[in-house]
Structure formats: C-alpha cells, structure tokens
C-alpha cells in the first residue's frame, strides 16, 4: 500500500462527515445571513434575494437583540466567575489531606454534571417556586422573605445562574483536583516554615501554579456559558419581560418559530463574533497578568 493512503482511508470518513455536516453548513450559514431567506423562500427558493449586510443592520436596530445580548453577557460575566470559584473551592476541599471519604464526595459533587439539563431544569423550576419551593422555604428559615425567583425580571437571571452553577461546577472541579495534585507538597512545606498561613499559601503557592489551568478552564467555561439555551427554554420561556431571552433563544425563535433563517443566521454569527472577541480579551488580560507577575 502506498504510504499515506492508509492514513487517508482511516481518517477520511470522519473528515468527510465533518466537512459535509459542519464545515459546509458553517459556510452556508454565512451566505444565508446575507440573504432574506424566510418562509416564502422555503416554499419557493426563487423568492430568495441577496441583501448584503441588511440583516446585521436590522439586528443593530432591534431592541430585543440588544436585550438578548445584555442578558447573555449578564449570564456569562456573573455565571462564569461564580462557577469557577465554586469549582475551585470544592476542589481545594477535596484535595485537602484532612478530607475523608474523598471518592464518595467526588461522586456526589459530580453527579449533576451527567444529568440531563432539561430534566433537572424542570426540577429546579419547582425548587424555585415562589410559594411551595424548597429554596424560599430554606431562605425563610434564616429570616429572608419569599423571592419570586422566576416571576420577577430582576431575579430570573440570578435564578438561572444559580441553577447553571449547580449543574456545571463539577467538571472544572475534577480538572482543578488533578492540577492541585500536581503541585509538589514540598512547596507548601516551605511556605509553612516561612510562616505562611493557609490563606497565604493559597494565594502565593496554589493560585500562581494553577494559572494555566485556570485560564484554560475560563476559556472553555465561557464558551459554554455563551451558548445558554435550554435553561431559559424550560424554566422561564425567555420571560418574565424578556429578562432571560438569550442570544441562542433569539436565534431559535427567529429561525424556527418565524422561519426568518437569514436573520437567524446573522444572530448566530453575531454570537460567534462576540465569543471570539471575549476569548481574545480574556487571553490578553491573562497575558497582561503574567507580564505583571514577571515584573514584580
């Protein structure tokens, strides 16, 4: 067999599948975003016209698009740091020499990750119930009055963020535990001898050595949180007062409820651009931090 042919035979099918079902549709999506593809074009493609960037300009003039953008950014800017903080805290606890039953704790903490988001969203919708929900019941026990979590536009996004943190923190926890185990124990020993307490050890030994892992986790988590969809679909249907309409929720409604596939494609690319810009910003901030540490 000619060298190289075997490689193509084994890799070819997967590459072909990804080409046909991903690369081609992505390119087509961009073309679609430059057309006025709507329900009439589905019936008869001759109704299709190129409109240049009109869909994008139309979005910029749509209040709901800005609302969805703001809601999604809210979810990302609050949800991602909170999620990572909980992952890191539980990872430090699990990694502690004092922790018992580590395996059982790890399994329990990780369980929400493998559950079906739709199903547990239905459960949390019930936990958030203003009158009968467990969350308000527990808050009442410590003297906090009932909150209309899913009915008050100020509380709907915080509720979805709490749910998302509960559902997702386990993934990054596992990654942090592995990274923590890779830190040599002698470094903590040395810090202790120099009089550093637990908090100082965390700040001057753990955090700097966790840097690359932290950045990787932040990039991946952020990309995931930008793709908010199922949670509002099940828990709030975008409401109340459109306070939980995310960018993907908007894309879904434009595309598959109103069949404006041209406009919906423009929404998809707007999300993609936003994700790229945010990731670039994050990486740049991280480089700045490294440079500052190097100079200190």
């Amino acid at each position, binding site marked *: 067999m000619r060298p190289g042919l075997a490689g193509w035979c084994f890799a070819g099918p997967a590459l072909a599948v990804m080409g046909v079902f991903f690369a081609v549709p992505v390119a087509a999506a961009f073309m679609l975003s430059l057309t006025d593809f709507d329900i009439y074009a589905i019936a008869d493609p001759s109704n299709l016209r190129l409109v240049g960037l009109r869909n994008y300009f139309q979005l910029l003039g749509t209040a709901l698009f800005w609302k969805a953008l703001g809601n999604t950014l809210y979810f990302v800017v609050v949800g991602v740091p909170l999620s990572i903080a909980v992952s890191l805290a539980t990872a430090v606890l699990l990694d502690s020499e004092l922790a018992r039953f580590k395996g059982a704790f790890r399994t329990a903490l990780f369980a929400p990750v493998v559950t079906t988001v739709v199903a547990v969203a239905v459960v949390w919708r*019930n936990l958030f119930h203003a009158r009968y929900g467990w969350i308000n019941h527990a808050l009442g026990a410590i003297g906090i009055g009932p909150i209309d979590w899913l009915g008050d536009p100020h509380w709907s996004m915080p509720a979805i963020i709490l749910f998302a943190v509960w559902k997702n923190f386990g993934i990054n926890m596992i990654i942090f535990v592995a990274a923590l185990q890779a830190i040599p124990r002698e470094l903590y020993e040395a810090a202790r001898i120099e009089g550093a307490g637990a908090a100082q050890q965390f700040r001057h030994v753990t955090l700097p050595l966790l840097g690359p892992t932290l950045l990787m986790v932040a990039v991946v988590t952020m990309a995931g949180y930008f793709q908010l969809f199922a949670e509002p679909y099940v828990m709030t249907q975008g409401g109340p007062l459109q306070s939980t309409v995310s960018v993907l929720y908007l894309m879904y409604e434009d595309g598959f409820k109103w069949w404006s596939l041209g406009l919906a494609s423009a929404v998809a690319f707007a999300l993609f651009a936003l994700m790229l810009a945010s990731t670039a910003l994050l990486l740049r901030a991280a480089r700045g931090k490294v440079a500052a540490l190097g100079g200190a």
Partner: protein
Amino acid sequence: MSRPASLAVNGLLLAAAAISVAPLLWMLSASLMPAGQSNAFPPPWVAAAPTLANYRELFARVGVGRYLANSVVVATAGTGLSLLFNVSAGYAFAKLPFGGRERIFRSLLAALVIPAQVAMLPLFLMLRSAGLVNSYAGVIVPALASVFGIFLVRQYARSIPDEILEAARLEGAGEAHIFVHIVLPLLKPILVTVAIFTFLNIWNDFMWPLIVLTDGRLQTLPVALALLSREHVQDNELMMAGSVVTVLPPLLLFLGLQRYYIQGLLLGSVKG
C-alpha cells in the same frame, strides 16, 4: 489545630455534597407522591404513601415509553456509528502519517471555537431537502464525528509502540488487520471512555433534536419532557417522574463507569 480544621473541611464537603444531591433526591421523592401533594407549604420531604401512579400515568397515558425508546435508539446507534468514525480517525492522526496530517489536525482543533449552533440553520435546510427531518438519522448525523472524540483517541493511541505495528507489517499483515487485531484491543479503555461521552452527549442533547424532530412521535426524552413541562405546569409529581425517567439512564451509566469518564475528562483537558 487539626481537629477543628478537619471538622471544617469535612463539614463543608458534606454541605456541598448535600446541595449537589438534594435536588435529585427531591425529584425522586416527589415523583412518588400522589398528585398535588408536593405543592404544599412547607414542602414535604418524603411521600406519605409512596405510589407509582405517576409512572403508570406517564407510560400508559402520556406515552413516555415511546420517547424512552427513541432516546435509546438514537443514543445507541449514534454512539456505535461515531465510535467507528472517531476511533479510526484518532488512530490515523496518531500512527498513520499522511500528507498534511498535522496541519489538518491543527485546523480541527481551531474549528472548536465555532459554536455548533452556527451550523444548525443550514443543516436543517440540507436535511430537509434530503428528507431527513423527522428521522433518527437527522438527529444522529451531526454527532457522527467529533473533534473531541478524535482528540481523545489520538492522545491515547500515541502510546502504542511503533515496533508492534512495524513487526506486524513485516509479517505481511494488512492495515485493516492490524487495526482490528492489534490496535483495537490496545485502545479498549479509551473506547469505553469515548463511548460514554458520546452516549451522554446524545442522550442529554436538547437544541438540535428540538429543531430536527418536529413530529411528536420521534421525539427524544428531553424534547418531549421540555414540551410536556410547558403544558403540564401544574402536574408537578408527573413531571418529576418524567425527569427521573430521563435522568436515570445517564446517571446509572456514570455511576457504573465513573473511572473511564473522569479519565476522559482529564485527558481532554490537557493541551494537545
């Protein structure tokens, strides 16, 4: 100092674990309550008289058995087919040099920055013209090959010594024979890992099946549950039973094969 510290660490872990598991236990508990009992103040922890009535109603009247079967078929077939594509490609990227291999692999990794939803609108139109909307195939197609799966297999396959493969070639074995009889047995642990990931992904997936399965008869459990829960806002216990049926298979799969799942997660988080 050690005793209070140990109490604090284990106490906090216990609290965090309780918060993680409590919603799942509540779901199970409420699913066993007669209609209306869970909507009370204060909410009851356990059913006064546990009943399977919700499950009977779910399967007999709502027809959840059909959605369960749809999910099982889609997730199982999707997992089997995608293993075929991902494992052979991952092996090629690790062990079979071909022109442009490294460049292609780098562009696959780069493509990970594109959110999958960008492809969904044209993919729907493509599948529509191919007559695959409202079919099992339509649900499975985008999951057939995944960069993550290929990446995992490649990482693992790189540890196979070249000498074994060379020796087999010198004895005249063909590439297909080598793959089936030498490579696959060595890759067994990572095959399990990729299979679990794929199965869970397809089982738990929501947005794409929601789009492509407009006909109720073919819907998967998450799609059916989401639509039912929008109608049956009041039937809390019934919806809890539906959630249990949806969540149980992936949870049991994870509990049984946890080691493989965690290993994959860690392998995938290492930069290539």
